[in-house]
């Protein structure tokens, strides 16, 4: 986990007068799922596209697999896979045609049919792109990103607009990509997604990274409080405290008192709470 695959130092990028990325520094390690999380317009996509070499930064340095995304673009594109936010393909391209075309663009490619099967798209191989559901389209984009067995995969807002069931199916696929040893760099504004998938996250706000760490460590650091809600004798009681000892203590106390408890639940803060605490607003505000 220690080898650095992507290294970004003091990245800045403007569009006219708008500072899309102000000062972003981050490191992505080999074999991890790294999430860049923040609200729309925070600079996630711009950062990711600079790292992919699709945009040229105004200042700062970027290294991906030891390569410069601009100078070594040709070499790098053989070694990274990308999926773009809200992307489309030709309306009337068939699934297998897209896979076949993409296979021909790289020096090496995996078996396209096996990949379609792995992503659950084999039944749709002859379907036109325009007839696919949102989840199927995203699975096809994942397939195109994986066709050449890249060392790093970039996934930009992969599950935005999908229903919960399709979203969960995609999460399993992403976890599977990591299991196969590929590093994943993703962006999302869905905190549940980040919490489920990411080994580490960077929270980005107004073009600046304001915090980096594992989801659990960030929650522990910024929102250590736990909430216990229990019902007894028809009354609901709420207790707050910090740390795991607090929960154990409350349970022990209830047991000692012989209180008859009808309902009991522990509420843990989430990344969403961390975000709220750090920025003063919710991620969708």
């Amino acid at each position, binding site marked *: 986990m220690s080898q650095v695959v992507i290294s970004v130092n003091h990245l800045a990028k403007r569009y006219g007068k708008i500072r899309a990325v102000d000062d972003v520094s981050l490191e992505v390690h080999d074999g991890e799922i790294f999430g860049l999380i923040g609200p729309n317009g925070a600079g996630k996509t711009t950062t990711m596209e600079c790292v*992919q070499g*699709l945009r040229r930064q105004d200042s700062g340095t970027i290294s991906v697999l030891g390569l410069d995304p601009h100078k070594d673009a*040709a070499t790098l*594109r*053989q070694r990274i896979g*990308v999926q*773009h*936010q*809200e*992307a*489309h*393909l*030709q*309306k*009337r*391209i068939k699934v297998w*045609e*897209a896979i*076949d*075309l*993409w296979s*021909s*663009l*790289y*020096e090496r490619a995996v078996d396209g049919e096996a990949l379609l099967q792995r992503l659950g798209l084999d039944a749709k191989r002859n379907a*036109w792109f325009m007839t696919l559901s949102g989840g199927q389209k995203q699975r096809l984009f994942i397939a*195109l990103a994986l066709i050449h067995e890249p060392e790093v995969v970039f996934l930009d807002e992969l599950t935005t607009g999908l229903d919960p069931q399709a979203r969960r199916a995609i999460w399993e696929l992403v976890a599977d990509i990591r299991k196969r040893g590929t590093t994943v760099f993703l962006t999302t504004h869905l905190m549940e997604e980040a919490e489920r998938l990411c080994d580490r996250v960077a929270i980005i706000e107004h073009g600046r990274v304001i915090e980096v760490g594992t989801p659990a460590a960030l929650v522990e650091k910024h929102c250590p409080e736990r909430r216990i809600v229990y019902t007894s004798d028809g009354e609901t009681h709420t207790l707050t405290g910090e740390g795991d000892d607090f929960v154990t203590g409350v349970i022990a106390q209830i047991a000692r008192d012989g209180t008859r408890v009808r309902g009991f639940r522990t509420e843990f803060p989430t990344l969403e709470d961390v975000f709220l605490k750090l920025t003063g607003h919710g991620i969708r505000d």
Partner: protein
Amino acid sequence: MRHGLNGFWKLTWVETKVFVREPMGLIGTLFVPVLLYIVLGRTLRIDVPSQAVQVPFNLAILSALFIGISAAMSLVAIISIYREGGILKRLRATPLSPVTILGSHVVLKLAFTAVGLGLLVLAGRQSFPGAMQVNVASFTAAVLLSTFSILSMGFIIASIVPTARFAQPISAATLYPMVGMSGLFFPIDRLPPFLQIVAQGLPTTHAVALMQGVWDGAGWGAHLGDAGALVLIAAISVAISTKIFRWE
């Protein structure tokens, strides 16, 4: 290198299939120019020149020019739709070079121009025996060079078009007036002096002069200036496009 070429032909072949699956585009490219020729040919009675109203322009050249214009309009539409849908951006993230991505569309459009022209010649000879007397190879070459020059200007138009919705109206508003002042319907020296200069800078003007020359039996040698102008306009358009082209 062999690998890149493989990608180019694969992309061109996929784009061909995708294009053929869209009925409206195919009809507009292949059949509308033929229909234009036959309907106007009947109306103007080009088959009986002695009895007919004096046909004021060469209908075959208008139809051929129309094929080239349709190709350019289709190119502008496709580029703007692909840009809006992020397809251009996605292709750019592959090892394909920008020239390959856009070049495959040019090759595709030129191929369909050749097929459209073939249909035009066949239908013309069938409908009006004796009316389509031209060296087909030389005329095809003239049409393809003309279309290439118009297509390269299409990339400039595609760079200006803000969204896919504006592709059709903007390319029509740019390209149709070019046909109007191309010298096909009236000599360009009847235009105001300023517009004469503008006309000299447009591919359609030289396209019409070259096609007319080939039609009349004059060789390419007599129209090297027009052929050169078409190449020059294409080169300038490509140079401008590389500066202003937007991938997203």
